[in-house]
């Protein structure tokens, strides 16, 4: 029997850290694939164009939506941490973390609306 409950899961900043790590892993998985696709352009423009036709599929657009969210939330979350560790202390870190996730979601939704 565990002595403690997992109450830490209700902490906003614990969740912010979790999202930061998961988004980082997601970007690490994405980047090699991204460079492989860019590498197609070196082989032939036709190959790249035919591959980019896949981007018209709804599932790819949804994946791009998720990717934009991951990129922005990782960027803003990382900026928050750098500011926290290198600049004078700023209160309201929970608000900043929620703000970072909200801005990331907003940017991703705007992106999705534009590509649909």
């Amino acid at each position, binding site marked *: *029997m565990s*002595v*403690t409950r997992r*109450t*830490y899961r209700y902490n906003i*900043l614990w969740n912010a*850290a979790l999202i930061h790590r998961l988004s980082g892993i997601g970007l690490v998985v994405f980047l090699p694939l991204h460079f492989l696709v860019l590498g197609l352009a070196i082989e032939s423009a036709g190959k790249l164009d035919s591959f980019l036709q896949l981007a018209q599929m709804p599932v790819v657009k949804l994946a791009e939506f998720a990717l934009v969210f991951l990129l922005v939330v990782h960027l803003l979350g990382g900026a928050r*941490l750098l500011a926290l*560790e290198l600049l004078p202390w700023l209160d309201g870190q929970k608000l900043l973390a929620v703000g970072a996730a909200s801005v990331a979601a907003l940017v991703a939704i705007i992106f999705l609306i534009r590509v649909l």
Partner: protein
Amino acid sequence: MSNASDVLQVSLWRGGAEGGFKTYEVPLRPNQTILDIVTWVQRNLDATLSYRFACRVGMCGSCAMMVNGHPRWTCRTHVAKVAQKGVVEIAPLANMPIIKDLAADMRQFFDKWVVAHGAFAGSKTRADEIELIKPAEPARVAVDAAIECINCGICYAACDTVRWNPEYLGPAALNRAWSLNNDVRDADHAGRLAAVSADGGCHNCHSHQSCQAHCPQSLNPTRSIAGLKRLSTQAYLRGDLKP
């Protein structure tokens, strides 16, 4: 027990690490604290219950326990604020070995204060002039914000990083180091900064701020640790601190 609304269902951790929760019925009273509950059980139901307390007024930091999953000072925690539908679960402080029942072994917590150079290092004798320190000086303001720690171990029990990394010095020891490194009278700033910048030191902190959320003294150890990170980075860039 006469009326269900007058009775609390209290689960207390019994035994060591391999123990379990045992439920007791405790009469509900006005202004009752969690420590009152534990004391009532020991004096009326089971005299073998082990727990730790001293002052009962929120000064000594002895009576911290996990209450419904959160570390709290039990002498200043009212049952009415934390009971969930008449149920209270009380366990020994997390992130520390269990001695027995509700008493956690705090040796590692205090040992880490020593590792973090938590003792004031004076450089003057009684024959020297008293150091004049203006209360408004930024360093003194930083000390004032961190100085009221009562060593209760609540931040240590709340810390996710301690849970993941047993070598991590923890919020209280690092908060202490920050307050001493802002004390102009202290003569061990460089040695202390090297100690808290090493493995298990300030750079391990993930800034989840659970320490701040739970500190009964309303301190913000995360802010202190962020300050140590800044000092450490500055010292590294100056070449004063080697990796």
